[in-house]
């Protein structure tokens, strides 16, 4: 092991990073001249400054440094390591909307553009004059530009095209021809960035460009009424000056638009509007640290080099012993160093001569244990190493000097071994205890009966102990590097594929475990039982665990919540919950809370004897209950989704309800430490509300349960399940891509394919996977079983004996796979472990590509990311021998997985 694998640093501070914040949503006065401003706003240099981490050669930067560099080179390299630095930067740009007359001055055109790079898509629809309410409609066919995709019956998605402005800046734009005599009242749209899944709106709502003057002003219109002078005051008056320029500006892209004969003179609707936006861009840089030992002075020379742009300040100190406390070394310190309190030093790194990054060198006295630092980019942006300080071990003793053995063995270790003696002691004490127990057990046997039970206990405890120890050994071996290996010096850390974190996908490399089943509440101490298995789950390779619903509930399983702030459930009390969450965090697993937002059980009856008055901290009354379920006599609005009839459905359209739920979610995040959500029964309310909840509670990962029936004809499942997956996609869309959704479609199709030996079902008409994962893989959370479908409920059980075929599918395919608890701790364990390890090893992620190579009656085969091949079904398949060489990696009943060798 010669490299240290470092997690993307991203998620450790993205929480504090800038969101699509309110600041960028507020309107600024309109700019009349868009191109020059664009330059100012868009930080092009930092965006382009991408460089994979690599080996940095030492360079003499200026004449004064030459001497130093020479000394460096003459000494032995003691340590060299390149750490990747991933961060998110917000780039600003703007969306501009222009309504103008097309060529020949006859038709009006609407142009929507954006000057940030991205895969922009205009998601739009129209409102007709006679429409009531705020529903969207499909525009007339003539208005739809080429290359557009209809989204059900109410919207169109049109990609923006890249164009060049007169002064050479790239921007993205789409034009829509307006038909003068149609009854269109307004055009509604939002802008979507397909790269990030982010949606851009106007003041939190759709953009609305009114085309007639009698539309009511509902506060979110950006378009002109009648004439430019009618633009809402806040936007400021627009001058006519802009129009001439704009028309010529867009001529070049007019050719792509359909041109229509004018029929009727429209009113003067021309105008121009801009909205600033911000976008998060993942940037990868690296920092390389090398330590050399100066043979003459016995001092250590430490050289830090990074390709981070701009001013970088290194905030540093040293460890004198293994107490791990920051201390300031004796001088001299490098130039531009200041003291920070009395604990650390801050040194500004010197810019490199090429302008690309910066460096610093530090001379450290003898006898120090290590060098610790973090990097500071600007106020508020700190770069750390996996959430910890960067730690560089220093040669505390030369190999020529004889020191006591103990000292040597400790100083030569990589950081976490500094704590070794203590932990070792406690570990061995722990194991000894177990061994003692066993010994006592054996010698204390008095009756056959007690022996019978104790044998079982001993059996369990030994097995668990072995697993725990193995998991521990594995995690250390996996992450440690031999300190003095030459390869560690030469090799740089393999650059991680860029991983953007968003709540819909996590890092994109997540593998989830559903950490309970329908019976888990029975022991009354599930949290504690799960805690025991945390390190095991971590060593299996899971990154996310979904815990059962934590609230007080009418039903023991937790899905009939009552007082949301009471977290004592049949799974354990609030303290145990906190403890299990912390345990999972300690082993590097993120924790999802199962939150039931659709319904809530009441505490009291109203005057009619109907249960719809709530108690506890959220003491809502019948106004919080939807109006269209007669059982509960709600006085809220109609439900925005399907009703769940066993309990009062919450009316999310009420501001106070949303406010309270947001507060609750934020409390759960902070108090319990949940990293994200599994959202129960999201069919029950509009996905747009989910978006509000997720934007406010900022989860690391969120997934919704949108479960409805697949389509069947005469009892046989239809091959085409596009409407089913479209419904799930629509929900994800409504959440703005802030959440993923369980891929129920894929589960259903796997059922039919495996049960009936109809493996052809695993390819849709376009040769792509037929589930949600074929259309929007990054948001598809695949699974084959959960507490409802399987476990002791068995509402829709996966075909028996074919579970591993199912897992070989979802664990090799894109999407975020979920493994059900019952399957992990079963005879499937080793096969599942092998598949997870293969997935991690080959870096398959939620956006990996799938190439289906065979979908026939008895066999399905696909190649993922060109380095993993999978075959499911009894039929024969071998991956092609060219151009890759394949070796069989995992195999089981009716499936095989290969990886390139």
């Amino acid at each position, binding site marked *: 092991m010669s490299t240290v694998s470092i997690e993307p640093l991203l998620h450790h501070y993205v929480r504090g990073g800038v969101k699509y914040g309110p600041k960028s949503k507020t309107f600024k006065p309109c700019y009349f001249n868009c191109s020059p401003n664009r330059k100012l706003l868009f930080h092009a240099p930092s965006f382009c400054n991408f460089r994979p981490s690599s080996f940095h050669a030492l360079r003499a930067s200026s004449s004064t440094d030459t001497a130093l560099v020479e000394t460096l080179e003459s000494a032995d390299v003691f340590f060299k390591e390149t750490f990747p630095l991933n961060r998110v930067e917000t780039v600003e740009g703007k969306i501009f909307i222009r309504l103008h007359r097309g060529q020949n001055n006859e038709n009006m055109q609407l142009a929507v553009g954006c000057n940030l790079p991205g895969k922009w898509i205009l998601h739009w629809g129209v409102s007709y004059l006679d429409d009531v309410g705020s529903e969207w409609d499909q525009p007339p066919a003539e208005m739809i530009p080429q290359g557009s995709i209809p989204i059900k019956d109410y919207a169109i998605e049109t990609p923006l095209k890249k164009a060049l402005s007169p002064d050479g800046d790239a921007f993205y734009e789409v034009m829509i021809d307006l038909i003068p005599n149609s009854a269109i009242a307004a055009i509604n749209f939002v802008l979507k960035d397909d790269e990030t899944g982010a949606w851009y709106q106007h003041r939190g709502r759709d953009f609305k460009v009114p085309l007639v003057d009698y539309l009511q002003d509902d506060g979110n219109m950006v378009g002109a009424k009648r004439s430019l002078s009618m633009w809402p005051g806040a936007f400021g008056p627009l001058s006519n000056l802009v129009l001439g320029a704009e028309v010529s500006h867009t001529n070049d892209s007019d050719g792509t638009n359909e041109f229509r004969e004018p029929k009727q003179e429209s009113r003067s609707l021309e105008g121009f509007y801009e909205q600033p936006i911000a976008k998060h861009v993942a940037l990868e840089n690296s920092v390389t640290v090398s330590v050399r030992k100066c043979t003459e002075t016995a001092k250590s020379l430490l050289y830090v080099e990074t390709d981070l742009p701009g001013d970088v300040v290194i905030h540093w100190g040293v460890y004198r012993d293994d107490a791990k406390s920051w201390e300031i070394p004796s001088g001299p310190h490098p130039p531009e160093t200041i003291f920070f309190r009395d604990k650390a030093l801050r040194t500004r790194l010197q810019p490199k001569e090429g302008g690309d990054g910066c460096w610093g060198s530090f001379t450290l006295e003898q006898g120090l244990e290590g060098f610790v630092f973090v990097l500071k980019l600007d106020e508020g942006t700190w770069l750390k190493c996996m959430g910890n300080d960067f730690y560089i071990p220093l040669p505390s003793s030369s190999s020529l000097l004889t020191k006591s053995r103990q000292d040597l063995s400790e100083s030569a270790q990589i950081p976490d071994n500094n704590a070794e003696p203590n932990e*070792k002691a406690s570990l061995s004490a722990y194991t000894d205890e177990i061994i003692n127990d066993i010994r006592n057990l054996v010698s204390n046997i008095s009756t056959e009966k007690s022996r019978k039970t104790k044998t079982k206990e001993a059996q369990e405890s030994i097995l668990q102990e072995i697993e725990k120890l193995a998991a521990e*050994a*594995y995690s250390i071996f996996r992450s440690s590097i031999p300190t003095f290996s030459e390869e560690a010096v030469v090799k740089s850390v393999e650059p991680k594929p860029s991983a953007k974190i968003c709540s819909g996908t996590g890092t994109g490399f997540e593998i989830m475990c559903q950490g309970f089943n329908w019976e888990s509440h029975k022991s009354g101490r599930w949290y504690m039982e799960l805690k025991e298995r945390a390190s095991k789950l971590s060593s299996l390779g899971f990154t996310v665990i979904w815990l059962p619903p934590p609230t007080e509930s009418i039903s023991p399983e937790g899905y009939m919540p009552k007082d949301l702030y009471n977290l004592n459930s049949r799974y354990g009390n609030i303290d145990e919950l906190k403890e299990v969450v912390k345990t999972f965090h300690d082993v590097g697993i993120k924790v999802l809370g199962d939150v039931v937002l659709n319904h809530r059980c009441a505490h009291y009856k109203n005057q009619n004897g109907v249960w719809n008055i709530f108690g506890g901290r959220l003491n809502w009354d019948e106004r919080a209950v939807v109006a269209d379920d007669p059982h509960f006599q709600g006085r809220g609005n109609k439900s925005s989704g399907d009703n769940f009839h066993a309990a009062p459905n919450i009316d999310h359209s009420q501001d106070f309800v949303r406010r309270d739920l947001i507060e609750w979610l934020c409390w759960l995040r902070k108090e319990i430490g949940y990293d994200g959500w599994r959202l129960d029964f999201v069919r029950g309310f509009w996905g747009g509300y989910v978006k509000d909840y997720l934007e406010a509670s900022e989860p690391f990962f969120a997934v919704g349960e949108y479960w409805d029936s697949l389509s069947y004809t005469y009892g046989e499942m239809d091959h085409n399940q596009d409407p089913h997956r479209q419904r799930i996609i629509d929900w994800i869309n409504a959440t703005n891509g802030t959440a993923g959704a369980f891929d129920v479609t894929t589960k259903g199709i796997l059922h039919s394919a495996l049960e009936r030996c109809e493996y052809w079902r695993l390819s849709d008409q376009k040769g792509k996977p037929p589930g949600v994962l074929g259309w929007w893989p990054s948001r598809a959370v695949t699974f084959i079983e959960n507490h409802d479908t399987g476990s002791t409920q068995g509402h829709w059980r996966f075909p028996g004996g074919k579970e591993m075929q199912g897992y070989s599918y979802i664990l090799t395919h894109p999407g975020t796979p979920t493994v059900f608890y019952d399957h992990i701790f079963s005879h499937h*364990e080793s096969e599942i472990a092998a598949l997870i390890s293969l997935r991690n090893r080959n870096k398959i992620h939620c956006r990996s590509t799938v190439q289906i190579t065979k979908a026939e009656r008895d066999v399905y085969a696909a190649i993922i990311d060109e380095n993993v091949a999978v075959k499911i079904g009894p039929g024969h398949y071998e991956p092609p021998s060219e151009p890759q060489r394949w070796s069989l990696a995992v195999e089981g009943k009716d499936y095989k997985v290969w990886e390139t060798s």
Partner: protein
Amino acid sequence: MEVSVIGCSQAKIGKTELAYRELGCFDPKGVSKAFSAKSRVCFSPSTRWRKAGIRFTLRAVQSEAVRSEKVAASSRISRSRDGVRLFVGLPLDSVSDCNTVNHARAIAAGLKALKLLGVEGVELPVWWGIVEKEAMGKYEWSGYLALAKMVQDAGLKLHVSLSFHASKRPKIPLPEWVSRIGESNPNIFFTDRAGQHYKECLSLAVDDLPVLDGRTPIQVYHEFCESFKSSFSPFMGSTLTGISMGLGPDGELRYPSHHMLTKSKQIPGVGEFQCYDKNMLGILKQHAEATGNPLWGLGGPHDVPTYDQSPNSNNFFRDNGGSWDSLYGDFFLSWYSNQLISHGNLLLSLAASTFSESAATVCGKIPLMHSWYKTRSHPSELTAGYYNTTTRDGYEVVAEMFARNSCKMILPGMDLSDEHQSRASLSSPELLLADIKKACRKHGVEVCGQNSSASMAPGGFQQIKKNLLGENIVDLFSYQRMGAYFFSPEHFPSFTQFVRSLNQPELHSDDLPEEEEETAHSLNVSSEASVHMQAV
């Protein structure tokens, strides 16, 4: 250890194992031999036996504590004919080149896990290039002693491999001072026909030449062993039960005939003879002149293929009419392989005499050159120094040499099965292994098994089991090797299962819950009963 008589599920084994060991009877070899027949009886769930077991318990515990020391001393004399003792290799780089224990915490956890699993001990490679790194005679044992202490604390046995070679991955070089000598005098290294030196270990031709600053390699090895013996005397015989002597490349008794193979791993070539360093050529010349064919002593055979070629690409190894089957061929091959055997003899007798007082078993490792076994000439074996063809048994002499020195033979490749070998290489690890085992059986040489591939191929464990259980010649298996992969979820569970199945060769009806309970009892009885009998 005596676990073959023990019941069904793994934890029970763990339990009894531990109970057994904690009681102090860690080496019931002689006794268990006598006992094994009886213990089989215990499998029948008889109440009488059960009761008897319970009654004996306390007495057994007491008497054992007294006996334990004596048993250790007798460990070399007899062995279990039923069980296989399992060892696991520690990482090659367990001790860093500045004598600290690498990833000590992981090793500590790993040792505990192995102990609980019922593994007997661990194997630890001790590198010449680390211990005697800086100057001749300047030994630094601290890292290894620390590790031995950890092993002892974990209650495991230790088997060290004295490694007088270098390792490429992880990079562990020869001692610096030896490499320096090698730079000025590359003739201390093995050399092939093209004049390329193999710098990972010293040529056997210099064994008795004073090339190391006036001392011979044999002297240097000897002093190393002496220093080891005195440094490890506290562990000798108690924790330290085995010492394997490094005999050549990768510690194996062979020529480095295959070190220049190119990347295409599919079909290994035949390798090349390594007799072209100045000293080897000198010996060959003398030998040829002494036998009256001076012209045969000018070099190795001229009609051999190169490293990665197949046997038929040149004349020497051809099945029919190849020069190996000629008078000259016999002359050369006999000389070439005899050189190797006398080298082995030299080192093993050195080790045997050095460690004769200590209670540790001395071992040597030989390679399993299984490719091209199905040809008549066995070219891979020939180039490696084993004159074993369809017409000549080359392992007899080797086994005889081991027997002469009362050394145990370490045999790798126990995990390899014929069906997983590439067809084109005409290889047969199973047949070759059978050949060698036959020779060993004939000369009464005990065998310690090892696996060859780092990552277990499908069916590897079954193959090992097959090799271990069928015969009574292999009583110890050293599984290679602890590390990240070893503990990874794709490997460790199957290893656990392997250990479990190893300890209970015949599967009992543990599907039936009641039966299971019964068996659990009888197994307790059996171990306790054995304790009792031992005490008597």
